[in-house]
Protein backbone atom coordinates (compact mmCIF):
# COMPACT_ATOMS: atom_id res chain seq x y z
CA UNK A 1 0.00 0.00 0.00
CA UNK A 2 2.50 2.58 1.17
CA UNK A 3 5.20 0.99 -0.86
CA UNK A 4 3.06 0.72 -3.94
CA UNK A 5 2.54 4.46 -3.76
CA UNK A 6 6.22 5.13 -3.41
CA UNK A 7 7.38 2.67 -6.02
CA UNK A 8 7.42 3.30 -9.72
CA UNK A 9 5.16 1.20 -11.88
CA UNK A 10 6.05 -2.08 -13.49
CA UNK A 11 8.01 -1.13 -16.58
CA UNK A 12 8.10 -4.46 -18.44
CA UNK A 13 11.86 -4.38 -18.19
CA UNK A 14 12.46 -7.26 -15.80
CA UNK A 15 16.07 -6.49 -15.00
CA UNK A 16 15.40 -2.87 -14.14
CA UNK A 17 12.26 -3.79 -12.23
CA UNK A 18 13.97 -6.40 -10.13
CA UNK A 19 16.91 -4.13 -9.41
CA UNK A 20 14.57 -1.36 -8.39
CA UNK A 21 12.58 -3.69 -6.15
CA UNK A 22 15.65 -5.22 -4.55
CA UNK A 23 17.07 -1.80 -3.78
CA UNK A 24 14.94 -2.00 -0.64
CA UNK A 25 16.51 -4.21 2.05
CA UNK A 26 13.08 -5.30 3.26
CA UNK A 27 12.25 -6.63 -0.21
CA UNK A 28 15.45 -8.67 -0.25
CA UNK A 29 14.54 -10.01 3.17
CA UNK A 30 11.03 -10.75 1.94
CA UNK A 31 12.42 -12.80 -0.95
CA UNK A 32 14.78 -14.68 1.36
CA UNK A 33 12.04 -15.36 3.89
CA UNK A 34 9.68 -16.31 1.09
CA UNK A 35 12.15 -18.86 -0.21
CA UNK A 36 12.57 -20.50 3.20
CA UNK A 37 8.84 -20.51 3.79
CA UNK A 38 8.16 -21.99 0.38
CA UNK A 39 10.59 -24.86 0.88
CA UNK A 40 9.20 -25.61 4.33
CA UNK A 41 5.58 -25.40 3.27
CA UNK A 42 6.22 -27.43 0.14
CA UNK A 43 7.78 -30.36 2.00
CA UNK A 44 5.52 -30.37 5.07
CA UNK A 45 2.46 -29.73 2.95
CA UNK A 46 3.22 -32.77 0.81
CA UNK A 47 3.12 -35.00 3.88
CA UNK A 48 0.06 -33.18 5.20
CA UNK A 49 -1.90 -33.81 2.03
CA UNK A 50 -0.71 -37.41 1.94
CA UNK A 51 -1.84 -37.93 5.53
CA UNK A 52 -5.17 -36.21 4.93
CA UNK A 53 -4.48 -33.86 7.79
CA UNK A 54 -5.60 -30.71 6.04
CA UNK A 55 -7.94 -29.88 8.87
CA UNK A 56 -5.26 -30.19 11.54
CA UNK A 57 -2.94 -28.14 9.34
CA UNK A 58 -5.55 -25.47 8.92
CA UNK A 59 -6.21 -25.34 12.65
CA UNK A 60 -2.51 -25.05 13.45
CA UNK A 61 -2.16 -22.24 10.98
CA UNK A 62 -5.08 -20.21 12.34
CA UNK A 63 -3.67 -20.64 15.82
CA UNK A 64 -0.81 -18.40 14.79
CA UNK A 65 -3.19 -15.47 15.08
CA UNK A 66 -3.90 -15.68 18.84
CA UNK A 67 -0.21 -16.41 19.28
CA UNK A 68 0.81 -13.16 17.69
CA UNK A 69 -1.99 -11.20 19.36
CA UNK A 70 -1.12 -12.63 22.77
CA UNK A 71 2.55 -11.86 22.33
CA UNK A 72 1.69 -8.30 21.39
CA UNK A 73 -0.52 -7.98 24.45
CA UNK A 74 2.29 -9.20 26.69
CA UNK A 75 4.78 -7.00 24.92
CA UNK A 76 7.12 -9.78 23.79
CA UNK A 77 8.18 -10.53 20.22
CA UNK A 78 5.45 -11.99 18.02
CA UNK A 79 7.79 -14.82 17.05
CA UNK A 80 7.56 -16.32 20.54
CA UNK A 81 3.77 -16.16 20.41
CA UNK A 82 3.65 -17.86 17.02
CA UNK A 83 5.80 -20.76 18.12
CA UNK A 84 4.30 -21.20 21.59
CA UNK A 85 0.75 -21.38 20.28
CA UNK A 86 1.38 -23.40 17.15
CA UNK A 87 3.51 -26.05 18.82
CA UNK A 88 1.25 -26.09 21.88
CA UNK A 89 -1.84 -26.61 19.75
CA UNK A 90 -0.03 -29.35 17.84
CA UNK A 91 0.62 -31.19 21.09
CA UNK A 92 -3.01 -30.79 22.18
CA UNK A 93 -4.34 -32.09 18.88
CA UNK A 94 -1.89 -34.98 18.99
CA UNK A 95 -2.83 -35.88 22.57
CA UNK A 96 -6.58 -35.50 22.81
CA UNK A 97 -8.33 -37.51 20.11
CA UNK A 98 -6.72 -40.84 20.92
CA UNK A 99 -7.82 -40.48 24.53
CA UNK A 100 -11.22 -41.50 23.21
CA UNK A 101 -9.60 -44.73 22.12
CA UNK A 102 -10.70 -44.71 18.53
CA UNK A 103 -7.88 -44.76 16.09
CA UNK A 104 -8.87 -43.31 12.78
CA UNK A 105 -6.84 -43.97 9.71
CA UNK A 106 -7.56 -40.58 8.22
CA UNK A 107 -6.33 -37.53 10.04
CA UNK A 108 -9.43 -35.46 9.43
CA UNK A 109 -11.85 -38.25 8.78
CA UNK A 110 -12.98 -39.11 12.29
CA UNK A 111 -15.98 -37.11 13.37
CA UNK A 112 -14.92 -36.72 16.97
CA UNK A 113 -11.33 -35.86 16.22
CA UNK A 114 -12.58 -33.22 13.82
CA UNK A 115 -14.98 -31.87 16.41
CA UNK A 116 -12.13 -31.51 18.91
CA UNK A 117 -9.90 -29.90 16.33
CA UNK A 118 -12.64 -27.50 15.26
CA UNK A 119 -13.41 -26.53 18.82
CA UNK A 120 -9.75 -25.86 19.57
CA UNK A 121 -9.53 -23.73 16.47
CA UNK A 122 -12.60 -21.64 17.24
CA UNK A 123 -11.60 -21.23 20.87
CA UNK A 124 -8.09 -20.07 20.07
CA UNK A 125 -9.27 -17.68 17.37
CA UNK A 126 -11.70 -16.31 19.92
CA UNK A 127 -8.84 -15.96 22.37
CA UNK A 128 -6.96 -13.99 19.75
CA UNK A 129 -9.93 -11.68 19.42
CA UNK A 130 -10.02 -11.30 23.21
CA UNK A 131 -6.34 -10.34 23.28
CA UNK A 132 -7.01 -7.71 20.64
CA UNK A 133 -10.00 -6.39 22.57
CA UNK A 134 -7.86 -6.14 25.70
CA UNK A 135 -5.03 -4.49 23.83
CA UNK A 136 -6.63 -1.23 22.78
CA UNK A 137 -5.68 0.41 19.54
CA UNK A 138 -4.25 -2.71 17.98
CA UNK A 139 -7.01 -2.92 15.42
CA UNK A 140 -5.02 -1.74 12.44
CA UNK A 141 -2.58 -4.61 12.77
CA UNK A 142 -5.24 -7.30 12.76
CA UNK A 143 -5.57 -7.47 9.01
CA UNK A 144 -1.82 -7.84 8.62
CA UNK A 145 -1.75 -10.64 11.19
CA UNK A 146 -4.57 -12.46 9.44
CA UNK A 147 -3.73 -11.84 5.82
CA UNK A 148 -0.01 -11.31 5.82
CA UNK A 149 2.37 -8.54 5.07
CA UNK A 150 5.78 -8.63 3.49
CA UNK A 151 6.72 -5.27 4.89
CA UNK A 152 9.23 -4.93 7.65
CA UNK A 153 10.71 -8.41 7.67
CA UNK A 154 14.01 -7.93 9.46
CA UNK A 155 17.26 -9.75 8.92
CA UNK A 156 16.94 -11.25 12.40
CA UNK A 157 13.56 -12.68 11.45
CA UNK A 158 15.05 -14.24 8.35
CA UNK A 159 17.78 -15.79 10.48
CA UNK A 160 15.27 -17.22 12.96
CA UNK A 161 13.23 -18.50 10.05
CA UNK A 162 16.29 -20.15 8.51
CA UNK A 163 17.17 -21.83 11.81
CA UNK A 164 13.64 -23.16 12.25
CA UNK A 165 13.51 -24.27 8.65
CA UNK A 166 16.80 -26.15 8.98
CA UNK A 167 15.63 -27.85 12.17
CA UNK A 168 12.31 -28.87 10.64
CA UNK A 169 13.91 -30.22 7.50
CA UNK A 170 16.46 -32.11 9.58
CA UNK A 171 13.71 -33.78 11.61
CA UNK A 172 11.87 -34.63 8.43
CA UNK A 173 15.01 -36.05 6.86
CA UNK A 174 15.36 -38.38 9.84
CA UNK A 175 11.73 -39.52 10.05
CA UNK A 176 10.84 -39.06 6.39
CA UNK A 177 10.87 -42.70 5.29
CA UNK A 178 9.07 -44.26 8.27
CA UNK A 179 6.63 -41.35 8.21
CA UNK A 180 5.85 -42.08 4.58
CA UNK A 181 5.26 -45.72 5.43
CA UNK A 182 3.10 -44.83 8.44
CA UNK A 183 1.12 -42.34 6.38
CA UNK A 184 0.37 -44.66 3.51
CA UNK A 185 -0.58 -47.69 5.55
CA UNK A 186 -0.70 -47.13 9.31
CA UNK A 187 -1.89 -50.65 10.12
CA UNK A 188 0.89 -52.45 8.25
CA UNK A 189 3.48 -49.96 9.52
CA UNK A 190 2.39 -50.54 13.11
CA UNK A 191 2.56 -54.30 12.58
CA UNK A 192 6.11 -53.92 11.29
CA UNK A 193 7.10 -52.10 14.47
CA UNK A 194 7.06 -48.53 13.17
CA UNK A 195 6.07 -46.20 16.07
CA UNK A 196 3.02 -44.79 14.26
CA UNK A 197 1.69 -42.72 17.15
CA UNK A 198 5.03 -41.16 17.99
CA UNK A 199 5.56 -40.31 14.33
CA UNK A 200 2.14 -38.73 14.19
CA UNK A 201 2.95 -36.51 17.17
CA UNK A 202 6.35 -35.57 15.76
CA UNK A 203 4.73 -34.71 12.46
CA UNK A 204 2.13 -32.47 14.10
CA UNK A 205 4.79 -30.62 16.08
CA UNK A 206 6.88 -30.13 12.96
CA UNK A 207 3.76 -28.94 11.15
CA UNK A 208 3.12 -26.51 13.99
CA UNK A 209 6.65 -25.11 13.79
CA UNK A 210 6.39 -24.76 10.03
CA UNK A 211 3.04 -22.95 10.20
CA UNK A 212 4.40 -20.65 12.89
CA UNK A 213 7.28 -19.72 10.63
CA UNK A 214 5.13 -19.38 7.55
CA UNK A 215 2.34 -17.33 9.05
CA UNK A 216 4.70 -14.42 9.58
CA UNK A 217 4.69 -13.92 5.84
CA UNK A 218 1.30 -15.04 4.60
CA UNK A 219 -0.76 -14.24 7.68
CA UNK A 220 -2.53 -16.73 9.89
CA UNK A 221 -5.52 -17.32 7.64
CA UNK A 222 -3.54 -17.96 4.49
CA UNK A 223 -0.62 -20.15 5.60
CA UNK A 224 -2.83 -23.01 4.82
CA UNK A 225 -2.92 -22.02 1.15
CA UNK A 226 0.82 -22.44 0.86
CA UNK A 227 0.70 -25.74 2.73
CA UNK A 228 -2.10 -27.42 0.85
CA UNK A 229 -2.17 -26.13 -2.70
CA UNK A 230 1.38 -26.71 -4.00
CA UNK A 231 1.28 -30.15 -2.41
CA UNK A 232 -2.10 -31.00 -3.87
CA UNK A 233 -0.90 -29.76 -7.25
CA UNK A 234 2.21 -31.93 -7.03
CA UNK A 235 0.18 -34.98 -6.06
CA UNK A 236 -2.06 -34.42 -9.04
CA UNK A 237 0.97 -34.42 -11.30
CA UNK A 238 2.95 -37.33 -9.89
CA UNK A 239 2.42 -40.06 -7.34
CA UNK A 240 6.14 -40.64 -6.74
CA UNK A 241 7.31 -39.28 -3.37
CA UNK A 242 10.68 -37.72 -4.22
CA UNK A 243 9.46 -36.20 -7.45
CA UNK A 244 6.28 -35.05 -5.74
CA UNK A 245 8.11 -33.28 -2.91
CA UNK A 246 10.44 -31.61 -5.38
CA UNK A 247 7.50 -30.46 -7.48
CA UNK A 248 5.68 -29.23 -4.40
CA UNK A 249 8.69 -27.16 -3.31
CA UNK A 250 9.20 -25.82 -6.82
CA UNK A 251 5.59 -24.73 -7.14
CA UNK A 252 5.56 -23.16 -3.69
CA UNK A 253 8.73 -21.24 -4.50
CA UNK A 254 7.44 -20.01 -7.84
CA UNK A 255 4.13 -18.96 -6.28
CA UNK A 256 5.78 -17.11 -3.39
CA UNK A 257 8.28 -15.19 -5.46
CA UNK A 258 5.77 -14.29 -8.15
CA UNK A 259 3.35 -13.15 -5.47
CA UNK A 260 5.97 -11.01 -3.77
CA UNK A 261 6.77 -9.31 -7.05
CA UNK A 262 3.14 -8.72 -7.95
CA UNK A 263 2.22 -7.61 -4.43
CA UNK A 264 5.05 -5.09 -4.55
CA UNK A 265 3.59 -3.49 -7.65
CA UNK A 266 -0.07 -3.69 -6.63
CA UNK A 267 -2.16 -2.34 -3.77
CA UNK A 268 -3.54 -5.72 -2.76
CA UNK A 269 -2.23 -7.88 0.08
CA UNK A 270 0.35 -10.59 -0.52
CA UNK A 271 -2.02 -13.24 0.83
CA UNK A 272 -4.45 -12.64 -1.96
CA UNK A 273 -1.79 -13.13 -4.61
CA UNK A 274 -0.32 -16.21 -2.98
CA UNK A 275 -3.68 -17.94 -2.82
CA UNK A 276 -4.64 -16.88 -6.32
CA UNK A 277 -1.46 -18.07 -8.00
CA UNK A 278 -1.44 -21.29 -6.01
CA UNK A 279 -5.04 -21.97 -6.90
CA UNK A 280 -4.34 -21.31 -10.57
CA UNK A 281 -1.57 -23.92 -10.43
CA UNK A 282 -3.90 -26.35 -8.69
CA UNK A 283 -6.64 -25.85 -11.26
CA UNK A 284 -4.12 -26.31 -14.08
CA UNK A 285 -2.90 -29.54 -12.50
CA UNK A 286 -6.45 -30.88 -12.59
CA UNK A 287 -6.60 -30.08 -16.26
CA UNK A 288 -3.33 -31.95 -16.85
CA UNK A 289 -4.54 -34.91 -14.84
CA UNK A 290 -7.85 -35.18 -16.63
CA UNK A 291 -6.12 -34.92 -20.00
CA UNK A 292 -3.70 -37.67 -19.03
CA UNK A 293 -6.50 -39.87 -17.86
CA UNK A 294 -8.41 -39.40 -21.06
CA UNK A 295 -5.38 -40.56 -22.99
CA UNK A 296 -4.08 -44.04 -22.53
CA UNK A 297 -5.27 -45.05 -19.08
CA UNK A 298 -7.65 -47.85 -18.26
CA UNK A 299 -11.16 -46.41 -18.47
CA UNK A 300 -12.23 -47.90 -15.15
CA UNK A 301 -9.48 -46.19 -13.21
CA UNK A 302 -9.97 -42.94 -15.01
CA UNK A 303 -13.62 -42.94 -14.07
CA UNK A 304 -12.79 -43.53 -10.42
CA UNK A 305 -10.19 -40.78 -10.36
CA UNK A 306 -12.47 -38.33 -12.14
CA UNK A 307 -15.08 -38.96 -9.48
CA UNK A 308 -12.77 -37.41 -6.93
CA UNK A 309 -10.53 -40.13 -5.54
CA UNK A 310 -7.09 -38.67 -4.89
CA UNK A 311 -4.27 -39.89 -7.08
CA UNK A 312 -2.44 -41.78 -4.39
CA UNK A 313 -5.35 -44.02 -3.50
CA UNK A 314 -5.90 -45.18 -7.05
CA UNK A 315 -2.29 -45.53 -8.16
CA UNK A 316 0.70 -47.21 -6.57
CA UNK A 317 2.68 -44.80 -4.49
CA UNK A 318 6.10 -46.37 -4.26
Amino acid at each position, binding site marked *: *MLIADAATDWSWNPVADLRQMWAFPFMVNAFRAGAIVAVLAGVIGWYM*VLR*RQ*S*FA*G*HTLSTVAFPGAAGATLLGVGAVYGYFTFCVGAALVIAAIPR*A*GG*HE*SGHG*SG*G*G*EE*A*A*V*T*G*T*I*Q*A*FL*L*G*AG*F*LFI*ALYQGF*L*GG*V*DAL*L*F*GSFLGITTTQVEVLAAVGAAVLLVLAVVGRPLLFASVDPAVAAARGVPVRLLSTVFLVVLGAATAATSQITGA*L*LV*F*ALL*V*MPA*ATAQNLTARPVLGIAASVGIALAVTWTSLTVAYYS*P*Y*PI*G*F*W*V*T*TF*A*FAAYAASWGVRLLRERRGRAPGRGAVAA*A*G*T*PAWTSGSLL
Partner: protein
Amino acid sequence: MTVLASGWPGALGHPFFLHAALAGAAIAAASGMVGYFLVLRAQVFTGDALSHMAFTGSLAALAAGVDLRLGLYAATIAVAVLLGTLSRSGRADDVAIGSVFAWITGLGAFFLTLYTTSGGADNAGAGVRVLFGSIFGLSAGQAGTAAAVAAGVCAVVLAVFRLLLFASVDEAVAAARGVPVRLLGFGFLALVGVTAAEASQAVGSLLLLGLLAAPAGTAQRLTDNPARAFALSTVLAVAEMWGGLTISYAVPKMPPSFAIVAVAAAVYAAAFAVGARRRNPGPRLARA
Protein backbone atom coordinates in the same frame (compact mmCIF):
# COMPACT_ATOMS: atom_id res chain seq x y z
CA MET B 1 -39.64 -6.08 21.55
CA THR B 2 -38.04 -2.88 22.71
CA VAL B 3 -41.15 -1.78 24.60
CA LEU B 4 -41.46 -5.19 26.16
CA ALA B 5 -37.88 -5.07 27.37
CA SER B 6 -38.19 -1.89 29.37
CA GLY B 7 -40.01 -3.55 32.26
CA TRP B 8 -37.54 -6.41 32.67
CA PRO B 9 -34.87 -6.45 35.29
CA GLY B 10 -31.11 -6.72 34.84
CA ALA B 11 -29.50 -7.59 31.57
CA LEU B 12 -32.80 -8.35 29.86
CA GLY B 13 -33.86 -4.74 30.44
CA HIS B 14 -31.49 -3.69 27.66
CA PRO B 15 -32.99 -4.13 24.21
CA PHE B 16 -29.63 -5.03 22.69
CA PHE B 17 -29.22 -7.87 25.13
CA LEU B 18 -32.75 -9.12 24.60
CA HIS B 19 -32.26 -9.12 20.82
CA ALA B 20 -28.99 -10.96 21.21
CA ALA B 21 -30.53 -13.52 23.56
CA LEU B 22 -33.49 -14.22 21.26
CA ALA B 23 -31.60 -14.36 17.99
CA GLY B 24 -28.72 -16.16 19.70
CA ALA B 25 -30.99 -18.90 21.03
CA ALA B 26 -32.49 -19.59 17.61
CA ILE B 27 -29.10 -19.52 15.91
CA ALA B 28 -27.60 -21.76 18.58
CA ALA B 29 -30.44 -24.28 18.28
CA ALA B 30 -29.97 -24.48 14.51
CA SER B 31 -26.19 -24.81 14.94
CA GLY B 32 -26.60 -27.53 17.52
CA MET B 33 -28.90 -29.56 15.26
CA VAL B 34 -26.91 -29.14 12.07
CA GLY B 35 -23.66 -29.54 13.99
CA TYR B 36 -24.78 -32.92 15.30
CA PHE B 37 -25.04 -34.27 11.76
CA LEU B 38 -21.90 -32.46 10.71
CA VAL B 39 -19.93 -34.35 13.36
CA LEU B 40 -21.77 -37.60 12.74
CA ARG B 41 -21.01 -37.41 9.02
CA ALA B 42 -17.39 -36.35 9.69
CA GLN B 43 -17.89 -33.17 7.70
CA VAL B 44 -16.64 -30.67 10.25
CA PHE B 45 -14.00 -29.54 7.78
CA THR B 46 -16.79 -28.59 5.38
CA GLY B 47 -18.23 -26.39 8.09
CA ASP B 48 -14.80 -24.84 8.51
CA ALA B 49 -14.62 -24.16 4.80
CA LEU B 50 -18.05 -22.57 4.82
CA SER B 51 -17.05 -20.28 7.64
CA HIS B 52 -14.38 -18.82 5.39
CA MET B 53 -16.87 -18.50 2.57
CA ALA B 54 -19.07 -16.50 4.91
CA PHE B 55 -16.22 -14.06 5.41
CA THR B 56 -15.54 -13.58 1.72
CA GLY B 57 -19.23 -13.39 0.84
CA SER B 58 -19.88 -10.69 3.42
CA LEU B 59 -16.95 -8.59 2.34
CA ALA B 60 -17.76 -9.01 -1.34
CA ALA B 61 -21.26 -7.73 -0.60
CA LEU B 62 -19.85 -4.81 1.41
CA ALA B 63 -17.37 -3.96 -1.34
CA ALA B 64 -20.18 -4.07 -3.90
CA GLY B 65 -22.32 -1.87 -1.69
CA VAL B 66 -25.21 -4.28 -1.14
CA ASP B 67 -26.62 -5.76 2.04
CA LEU B 68 -24.03 -7.86 3.84
CA ARG B 69 -26.45 -10.71 4.44
CA LEU B 70 -27.12 -11.09 0.71
CA GLY B 71 -23.48 -11.93 0.08
CA LEU B 72 -23.37 -14.07 3.19
CA TYR B 73 -26.19 -16.39 2.20
CA ALA B 74 -25.36 -16.44 -1.50
CA ALA B 75 -21.72 -17.34 -0.85
CA THR B 76 -22.27 -20.03 1.75
CA ILE B 77 -25.10 -21.81 -0.06
CA ALA B 78 -23.43 -21.62 -3.47
CA VAL B 79 -20.18 -22.97 -2.10
CA ALA B 80 -21.91 -25.69 -0.12
CA VAL B 81 -23.52 -26.95 -3.31
CA LEU B 82 -20.22 -26.59 -5.18
CA LEU B 83 -18.42 -28.66 -2.54
CA GLY B 84 -21.11 -31.26 -2.89
CA THR B 85 -20.57 -31.37 -6.65
CA LEU B 86 -16.80 -31.61 -6.33
CA SER B 87 -17.03 -34.79 -4.35
CA ARG B 88 -18.54 -38.19 -4.71
CA SER B 89 -21.93 -38.78 -3.15
CA GLY B 90 -22.14 -35.36 -1.59
CA ARG B 91 -19.19 -35.80 0.77
CA ALA B 92 -16.49 -33.35 -0.15
CA ASP B 93 -12.85 -34.44 -0.29
CA ASP B 94 -10.71 -32.48 2.15
CA VAL B 95 -7.84 -31.53 -0.14
CA ALA B 96 -10.28 -30.14 -2.70
CA ILE B 97 -12.15 -28.30 0.04
CA GLY B 98 -8.91 -26.96 1.47
CA SER B 99 -7.65 -25.67 -1.85
CA VAL B 100 -10.94 -24.02 -2.72
CA PHE B 101 -11.41 -22.31 0.60
CA ALA B 102 -7.81 -21.21 0.92
CA TRP B 103 -8.26 -19.37 -2.35
CA ILE B 104 -11.63 -17.98 -1.32
CA THR B 105 -10.08 -16.65 1.89
CA GLY B 106 -7.47 -14.94 -0.24
CA LEU B 107 -10.27 -13.37 -2.26
CA GLY B 108 -11.74 -12.22 1.04
CA ALA B 109 -8.48 -10.42 1.80
CA PHE B 110 -8.75 -8.79 -1.61
CA PHE B 111 -12.30 -7.56 -0.98
CA LEU B 112 -11.30 -6.39 2.48
CA THR B 113 -8.54 -4.23 1.01
CA LEU B 114 -10.92 -2.98 -1.65
CA TYR B 115 -13.53 -2.06 0.94
CA THR B 116 -11.31 -0.55 3.59
CA THR B 117 -9.28 1.55 1.19
CA SER B 118 -12.37 2.84 -0.60
CA GLY B 119 -14.38 3.95 2.41
CA GLY B 120 -11.98 5.55 4.85
CA ALA B 121 -12.11 5.30 8.62
CA ASP B 122 -15.72 4.10 8.84
CA ASN B 123 -14.90 0.93 6.99
CA ALA B 124 -11.67 0.15 8.79
CA GLY B 125 -13.24 -2.14 11.36
CA ALA B 126 -15.32 -4.07 8.83
CA GLY B 127 -12.94 -7.00 8.58
CA VAL B 128 -12.84 -7.48 12.33
CA ARG B 129 -16.62 -7.18 12.60
CA VAL B 130 -17.22 -9.78 9.94
CA LEU B 131 -14.56 -12.15 11.25
CA PHE B 132 -15.52 -11.98 14.90
CA GLY B 133 -19.17 -10.99 14.86
CA SER B 134 -21.14 -8.41 16.75
CA ILE B 135 -24.19 -10.06 18.26
CA PHE B 136 -24.83 -7.14 20.61
CA GLY B 137 -25.17 -4.94 17.56
CA LEU B 138 -28.23 -6.70 16.17
CA SER B 139 -31.28 -4.52 15.64
CA ALA B 140 -34.79 -5.78 16.38
CA GLY B 141 -35.40 -6.39 12.67
CA GLN B 142 -32.13 -8.25 12.15
CA ALA B 143 -32.73 -10.35 15.24
CA GLY B 144 -36.23 -11.22 14.03
CA THR B 145 -34.99 -12.27 10.59
CA ALA B 146 -32.16 -14.31 12.06
CA ALA B 147 -34.52 -16.07 14.44
CA ALA B 148 -37.02 -16.83 11.68
CA VAL B 149 -34.39 -18.30 9.36
CA ALA B 150 -32.89 -20.32 12.18
CA ALA B 151 -36.33 -21.65 13.11
CA GLY B 152 -36.80 -22.67 9.48
CA VAL B 153 -33.50 -24.58 9.54
CA CYS B 154 -34.55 -26.35 12.73
CA ALA B 155 -37.89 -27.32 11.20
CA VAL B 156 -36.24 -28.79 8.09
CA VAL B 157 -33.70 -30.76 10.15
CA LEU B 158 -36.45 -32.16 12.37
CA ALA B 159 -38.50 -33.11 9.31
CA VAL B 160 -35.71 -35.14 7.69
CA PHE B 161 -34.16 -36.31 10.97
CA ARG B 162 -34.81 -40.03 10.54
CA LEU B 163 -33.84 -40.20 6.88
CA LEU B 164 -30.72 -38.12 7.37
CA LEU B 165 -29.67 -40.20 10.37
CA PHE B 166 -30.10 -43.40 8.38
CA ALA B 167 -28.15 -41.99 5.43
CA SER B 168 -25.38 -40.71 7.70
CA VAL B 169 -24.90 -43.85 9.77
CA ASP B 170 -25.00 -46.36 6.95
CA GLU B 171 -25.00 -44.78 3.54
CA ALA B 172 -24.84 -47.99 1.54
CA VAL B 173 -27.76 -49.67 3.26
CA ALA B 174 -29.78 -46.47 3.14
CA ALA B 175 -29.18 -46.18 -0.60
CA ALA B 176 -30.19 -49.81 -1.09
CA ARG B 177 -33.42 -49.16 0.78
CA GLY B 178 -34.28 -46.35 -1.63
CA VAL B 179 -33.28 -43.36 0.52
CA PRO B 180 -32.16 -40.52 -1.81
CA VAL B 181 -28.69 -40.41 -0.26
CA ARG B 182 -27.17 -38.04 -2.78
CA LEU B 183 -30.01 -35.58 -2.63
CA LEU B 184 -29.89 -35.65 1.16
CA GLY B 185 -26.15 -34.99 1.04
CA PHE B 186 -26.66 -31.91 -1.14
CA GLY B 187 -29.63 -30.72 0.88
CA PHE B 188 -27.69 -31.12 4.08
CA LEU B 189 -24.73 -29.14 2.76
CA ALA B 190 -27.07 -26.34 1.70
CA LEU B 191 -28.54 -26.38 5.18
CA VAL B 192 -25.06 -26.14 6.66
CA GLY B 193 -24.51 -23.16 4.37
CA VAL B 194 -27.58 -21.38 5.72
CA THR B 195 -26.59 -22.19 9.29
CA ALA B 196 -23.06 -20.93 8.72
CA ALA B 197 -24.44 -17.66 7.38
CA GLU B 198 -26.71 -17.39 10.41
CA ALA B 199 -24.05 -18.21 12.94
CA SER B 200 -21.53 -15.84 11.44
CA GLN B 201 -23.89 -12.98 12.28
CA ALA B 202 -23.74 -14.04 15.90
CA VAL B 203 -20.16 -15.09 16.57
CA GLY B 204 -18.42 -14.06 13.36
CA SER B 205 -17.25 -16.20 10.50
CA LEU B 206 -14.08 -17.36 12.23
CA LEU B 207 -15.72 -18.62 15.39
CA LEU B 208 -18.88 -20.24 14.07
CA LEU B 209 -17.06 -23.55 13.90
CA GLY B 210 -17.05 -23.59 17.69
CA LEU B 211 -20.81 -23.28 17.73
CA LEU B 212 -21.18 -26.06 15.15
CA ALA B 213 -18.63 -28.53 16.48
CA ALA B 214 -18.40 -28.11 20.25
CA PRO B 215 -22.00 -28.83 21.38
CA ALA B 216 -22.30 -31.72 18.95
CA GLY B 217 -18.96 -33.17 19.98
CA THR B 218 -19.91 -32.84 23.64
CA ALA B 219 -23.25 -34.54 23.10
CA GLN B 220 -21.72 -37.44 21.21
CA ARG B 221 -19.15 -37.87 23.94
CA LEU B 222 -21.83 -38.13 26.61
CA THR B 223 -24.28 -40.46 24.90
CA ASP B 224 -24.34 -42.98 22.07
CA ASN B 225 -28.09 -42.78 21.56
CA PRO B 226 -28.62 -40.67 18.40
CA ALA B 227 -31.92 -39.04 19.41
CA ARG B 228 -30.61 -38.21 22.86
CA ALA B 229 -27.32 -36.86 21.50
CA PHE B 230 -29.21 -34.75 18.97
CA ALA B 231 -31.43 -33.22 21.65
CA LEU B 232 -28.50 -32.74 24.00
CA SER B 233 -26.49 -31.00 21.29
CA THR B 234 -29.33 -28.56 20.67
CA VAL B 235 -29.92 -27.82 24.35
CA LEU B 236 -26.19 -27.43 25.03
CA ALA B 237 -25.77 -25.01 22.14
CA VAL B 238 -28.56 -22.76 23.43
CA ALA B 239 -27.31 -22.93 27.02
CA GLU B 240 -23.75 -22.14 25.92
CA MET B 241 -24.98 -19.20 23.87
CA TRP B 242 -26.87 -17.75 26.81
CA GLY B 243 -24.03 -18.48 29.20
CA GLY B 244 -21.58 -16.69 26.94
CA LEU B 245 -23.88 -13.70 26.51
CA THR B 246 -24.35 -13.42 30.27
CA ILE B 247 -20.62 -13.60 30.97
CA SER B 248 -19.92 -11.04 28.31
CA TYR B 249 -22.57 -8.75 29.80
CA ALA B 250 -21.06 -9.12 33.26
CA VAL B 251 -17.50 -8.56 32.01
CA PRO B 252 -17.83 -5.84 29.39
CA LYS B 253 -14.22 -6.14 28.29
CA MET B 254 -14.84 -9.65 27.06
CA PRO B 255 -16.21 -9.81 23.50
CA PRO B 256 -19.42 -11.89 23.35
CA SER B 257 -18.17 -14.14 20.58
CA PHE B 258 -15.16 -15.14 22.65
CA ALA B 259 -17.31 -15.75 25.73
CA ILE B 260 -19.70 -18.00 23.78
CA VAL B 261 -16.96 -20.05 22.20
CA ALA B 262 -15.04 -20.23 25.48
CA VAL B 263 -18.08 -21.58 27.33
CA ALA B 264 -18.65 -24.13 24.56
CA ALA B 265 -15.01 -25.23 24.67
CA ALA B 266 -15.05 -25.44 28.47
CA VAL B 267 -18.15 -27.65 28.43
CA TYR B 268 -16.52 -29.88 25.82
CA ALA B 269 -13.38 -30.16 27.94
CA ALA B 270 -15.53 -31.05 30.95
CA ALA B 271 -17.24 -33.73 28.88
CA PHE B 272 -13.82 -35.22 28.18
CA ALA B 273 -13.11 -35.36 31.89
CA VAL B 274 -16.48 -36.95 32.64
CA GLY B 275 -16.61 -39.13 29.57
CA ALA B 276 -13.23 -40.74 30.16
CA ARG B 277 -15.40 -43.61 31.46
CA ARG B 278 -16.61 -46.39 29.18
CA ARG B 279 -16.39 -45.74 25.52
CA ASN B 280 -17.89 -48.67 23.68
CA PRO B 281 -17.92 -48.28 19.91
CA GLY B 282 -21.47 -47.24 19.08
CA PRO B 283 -23.22 -47.44 15.75
CA ARG B 284 -21.44 -44.40 14.38
CA LEU B 285 -18.00 -45.92 14.80
CA ALA B 286 -18.97 -49.18 13.19
CA ARG B 287 -18.80 -47.67 9.74
CA ALA B 288 -15.31 -46.22 10.15
